[in-house]
């Protein structure tokens, strides 16, 4: 496993078989997870997957029913939030509406009995860190700020107490797209600059891929996969991960033969394709594979290169997306396959496919991901 970030190998957050139930609902189910010092770590998943509950377990806003939560090496299962080395940025910012920006940011320092002269300088520095001019904004009330400015105040309020671990619960969810992209880069830069471990909850896969050193993809209260953005995108272990992160086409069938390092798979409709013959892929074995749209190609049925898999079908639609052009092909068995072709200029070199064309969807046997059973 390679790491993209400069973070150390010291584990600052460790969850060991942590379970949290709300009545009959298990929100977090035996989750084990380690997060390293300085890492930008994302918890990614659809709503209700348990990612926010996991974050709240780290904050101390929830207590685990089973398992241990360790922060900086110490078990903190029953410790209250104010006894933990964390700060948190909430989804709706949770700024105190009766306090101005300065007093919102000063709140955590006042609780820690920091001398008031030091509070003043640290509040200034925190506001400058999140690029809010203290002379302009310090005296404003939260109601006088835009969404993006509130987000910056919330961030300054959390950073000013210099936590070892910063927890962020979908902090950019309510901000418009352009500002969100900008804030993503700023958050990433702050993580590098301050050396604080960031644990970031999001349902936006693109956001997670952009910012994270590592991502834990969560599905129905469990961790489906942990890895770098490249690992979870290019080497998804389950159909859920493949489908949730980016787009994916799925093919299933039974292994009928293996030779020359390739296994031949027969799909229910009778069509066949080849996949890399990993250990244990003997004849009779049912398999499921995922292929990214950009790993596919579209061919005239007679022109498919011998090295490629090919499934016959007909073009259903051609969708122009700017960077790419998607060709949607309906296969003989009725399934749709999405193929992403790089846009080389539709005005000068248009994609030669039109709805109704008889084509074959092709891909190289090694350009697929054999999925584990979920």
């Amino acid at each position, binding site marked *: 496993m390679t790491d993209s970030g400069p973070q150390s190998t010291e584990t600052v957050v460790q969850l060991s078989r942590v379970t949290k139930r709300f009545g009959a609902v298990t929100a977090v189910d035996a989750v084990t997870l380690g997060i390293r010092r300085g890492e930008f770590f994302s918890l990614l998943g659809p709503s209700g997957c348990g990612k926010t509950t996991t974050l709240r377990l780290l904050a*101390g806003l929830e207590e685990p029913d089973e398992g241990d939560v360790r922060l900086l090496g110490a078990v903190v299962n029953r410790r209250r939030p104010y006894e933990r080395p964390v700060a948190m940025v*909430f989804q709706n910012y949770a700024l105190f509406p*009766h306090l101005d920006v300065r007093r919102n940011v000063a*709140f955590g320092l006042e609780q820690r009995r920091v001398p008031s002269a030091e509070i003043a300088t640290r509040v200034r520095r925190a506001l400058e860190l999140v690029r809010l001019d203290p002379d302009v904004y310090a005296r404003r009330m939260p109601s006088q700020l835009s969404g993006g400015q509130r987000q910056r105040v919330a961030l300054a309020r959390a950073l000013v107490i210099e936590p070892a671990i910063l927890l962020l619960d979908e902090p950019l969810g309510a901000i418009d797209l352009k500002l969100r992209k900008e804030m993503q880069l700023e958050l990433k830069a702050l993580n590098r600059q301050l050396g604080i471990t960031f644990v970031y909850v999001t349902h936006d896969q693109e956001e997670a891929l952009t910012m994270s050193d590592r991502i834990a993809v969560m599905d129905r209260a469990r961790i489906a996969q942990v890895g770098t953005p490249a690992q979870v995108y290019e080497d998804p272990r389950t159909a859920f991960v493949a489908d949730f992160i980016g787009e994916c086409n799925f093919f299933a069938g039974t292994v009928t033969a293996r030779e020359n390092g390739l296994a031949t798979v027969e799909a229910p409709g009778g069509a066949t394709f080849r996949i890399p013959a990993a250990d244990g892929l003997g004849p009779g074995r049912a398999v499921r594979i995922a292929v990214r749209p950009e790993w596919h190609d579209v061919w005239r049925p007679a022109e498919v290169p011998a090295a490629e898999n090919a499934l016959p079908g007909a073009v259903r639609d051609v969708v122009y997306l700017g960077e790419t052009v998607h060709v949607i092909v309906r296969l003989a068995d009725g399934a749709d396959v999405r193929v992403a072709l790089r846009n080389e200029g539709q005005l000068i070199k248009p994609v030669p496919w039109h709805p109704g064309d008889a084509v074959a969807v092709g891909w190289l046997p090694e350009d697929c991901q054999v999925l584990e059973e979920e």
Partner: protein
Amino acid sequence: MSRPRALLAGLNRRPRLVVASLLAPGTLWLVVFFFVPIAVVLAYSFMPRGVYGGVTGGTTLEHYRRFMDPLYLTVLRRTVVLAVACTGLCLLAGYPVAYVIARAGRWKNLLLFLIVMPLWTSFLVRTYAMIFLLRDTGFVNTVLLALGLVREPLTLLYTPGAVLAGLVYGYLPLMVLPIYVSLEKLDPTLLEAAEVLGARPAARFWRITVPLSMPGIVAGAMLVFIPALGAFLTPDLLGGAKQMMVGTLVQNQFGAARDWPFGSAASFVLMAVVLVAVLAYLRLRDRGSVEALA
């Protein structure tokens, strides 16, 4: 852009008439039954008393001068002290109740119903019930005697304590309801944010909960203080002649004593006290020290 604007312009002109006709009944009612009587009372308070109880022409400060008599100033002082004490006790007793109800989940409505229920019964009947509880042979004394805690009945009725108990009992719901409303609106995420920022329970309460429920506290205090200041039934029934409040005095002047100008003057002194209290609050709020007080 042009369509919505045209629509709004139309809305602006037409409803002016509609709005006026909707406001008219209420305005008329207030003018006829509030402003006019107040003006009459104000005028009476500056007019000499007539032989048979009415007023005669001319102006005089005699009634206000008479109120400055130590006898009446004692009544005024007692009234203010009782009203302030009643407001304070209602706040102390009412805030925790409102706090619990605001967090009671599905029991909320039932608890609110229980708070409001006493208001279904006539205030007079409820005050008489207090007499049955507090008199020498009443429930409280019976229990104390039966338990052997006292040897002879305590004098509870016709004391300042009885009046205060009656006032607190009567006005407590008026304190609970507005505080409940402001606590109900309080976003629990703010308390979580404070906790993660290092605030222990007491700090969360004083720094977040109390300041954010201040509008409810002020509304409740006004709703209790003003009627407590003007109370006449409770001091009359539970306090007797020795515990007279300004309200009782006014009632007597307009009733048995048939001295309407003096009753009017006493009413206006009371209104002046309310005015001073409200102005003092506004001064505090504008200087931003209400939160600091909390």
